[in-house]
């Protein structure tokens, strides 16, 4: 097998990157109105529960997405400002608790 030219490889890598960039940009747009977990057969591929999931009668049949596509489903994903504030408080508490725990264990070591 002949030795590969790194410049030729880089050209291919750039092409792949360009293709994926286009696809990801398009995915962002599509995901405004169509759930990204909904496949081409309108089956839900999510591993979590969603209110739009329509469970079939039999276990073998796939779960169908029941979203009608007429509204921006992602508004349901947007965070409530109150939840944001709660999360912020929780993060700050996690950091404070960890700092206290570390300084207590440091004190123990020096004692």
């Amino acid at each position: 097998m002949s030795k590969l030219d790194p410049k030729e490889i880089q050209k291919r890598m750039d092409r792949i990157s360009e293709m994926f960039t286009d696809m990801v940009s398009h995915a962002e747009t599509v995901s405004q109105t169509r759930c990204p977990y909904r496949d081409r057969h309108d089956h839900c591929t999510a591993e979590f529960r969603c209110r739009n999931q329509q469970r079939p009668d039999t276990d073998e049949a796939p779960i169908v997405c029941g979203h009608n596509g007429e509204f921006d489903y992602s508004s349901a994903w947007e965070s409530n400002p109150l939840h944001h504030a709660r999360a912020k408080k929780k993060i700050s508490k996690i950091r404070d608790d960890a700092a206290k725990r570390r300084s207590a264990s440091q004190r123990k070591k020096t004692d």
Partner: protein
Amino acid sequence: MAELSDIANEFIREEIEEYLERPEEIERNIELFARIRPAMQEIAAALIEGENDVVDRLTQQALADGTEALEIMDDGLIAGMGIVGIKFREAMIFVPEVLACARAMKAGMHYIEPILSDAGVEPIAKVLMGTVKGDLHDIGKNLCIMMLRGSGFEVVDLGVDTSDDDFIDAIEEHQPSILGMSALLTTTMPNMGKAIEAFIDADVRDDVMVMVGGAPVTQEFADDMGADGYGKDALACVELAKRLAGVQN
């Protein structure tokens, strides 16, 4: 000028006939696939179908038969992904199918990468990616992984619902330079901060640069958690990873 019938692979012929609508794209793809060897057309067809085990087997076989890595990349993987891109743009397939095709491409690249490495093309950096404990949303993370791999990063995917201990074990095992965490829910987002604190306790925090992302995450949250960076989407994730890896654009 080549004709559709000059393409040996029936599946590829059907894909072009059924899904391509723009005359210039039809012509370009007929020209392209008509000159591609049947073995490479098979790889492209399997990639379009998202069959990663078939791409895996055919790529391995092609290399064993003496096919050049660049031919497999050009005529199998990239040519197939070109059709996938068109189908996605035309709303004939959606994100789950695109991700399956990206996984199939990864299966083929698995055998190509060591050859590229021998030629002096190394991954930019190794990145660990996982969705935090309690969170099962993975599309955003998977799009980031697809982009990172496509941009030349080596990625270890830890999946969803990743515990602090799993992250720490993976840091020790894979020794990445970057770790990416995502969360889609405000309720699970604080777990990223918890994980960072666990990294400090386990004495591995200084071993990795931590980037965070996901719908509810903002730069402010990232700063509050003590992360090294925040990416709002998959494109920003790649730019951030390049910055953290010290790559100049």
